[in-house]
């Protein structure tokens, strides 16, 4: 981690891994009778969405990534209300000094702030770590979307 020459690895697992984890989550939901019971549609959708994120986090390597760890932790203590990501420690930015004029670095930091709110666990990450985690997060997210799209296509009436 300290070496400046070490290449950042952003390879994600194959699509099968994501599909497998999502299927497992779905069959768990099936066992809990989520799909047959006369439940409110909203609850069902929320459960599926949660299953999607949790299975994605597991497929991505569980706790080995900061964002997946944050996702799993959030899912574990989530009730029915929305949980906001809060900053737990003072983050380190790549600004060595705070400048009062609007220079490009400040613009970057503003965008980085927005990114922090979107990536799970981003609030506690240093900016360079944030970018690395974001790359991985984006790849996994698009994998998950592909898996779900395949499912929808397969289940839709011809």
């Amino acid at each position, binding site marked *: *981690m*300290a070496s*400046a020459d070490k290449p*950042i690895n*952003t390879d994600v697992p194959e*699509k099968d891994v994501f*599909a497998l984890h999502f*299927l497992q989550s*779905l069959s768990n939901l*099936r066992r809990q009778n989520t*799909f*047959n019971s006369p439940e409110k*549609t909203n609850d*069902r*959708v929320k459960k*599926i*969405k949660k299953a*999607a*994120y949790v299975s994605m986090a597991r497929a991505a390597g569980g706790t080995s990534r900061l964002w997946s760890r944050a996702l799993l932790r959030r899912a574990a203590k989530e009730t029915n209300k929305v949980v906001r990501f809060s900053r737990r*420690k003072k983050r*380190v930015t*790549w600004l060595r000094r705070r400048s009062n004029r609007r220079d*490009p670095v400040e*613009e*970057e930091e*503003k*965008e*980085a702030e*927005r*990114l922090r709110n*979107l*990536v799970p666990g981003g609030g*506690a*990450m*240093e*900016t*360079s*770590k944030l*970018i*690395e985690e*974001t*790359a991985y*997060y*984006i*790849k996994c*997210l*698009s994998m*998950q*979307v*592909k*898996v*779900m*799209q*395949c*499912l*929808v*296509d*397969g*289940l*839709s009436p011809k």
Partner: protein
Amino acid sequence: MSSRRSSRLRQSGSSRISDDQIADLVTKLQHLIPELRRRRSDKVSASKVLQETCNYIRNLHREVNDLSDRLSELLASTDDNSAEAAIIRSLLNY
């Protein structure tokens, strides 16, 4: 809990991340985002990359939401046996 703390220390206490590394990471990010990959130019500023990244992530979240909606309808309306077969078939065909 201490492992969490030490991993945080490892990030901020180690030698300063060089600007080159950050630029490299930003470039990697740029290649991942379809919007920016099409442009193929190296002159996209870091803040633009971050901005497009935010938009892209928001889009992906929205797609997950939409797909969850549709999955919820589909899974509720199909009966057990055909649903399982359809699921396995569709995932094996990608």
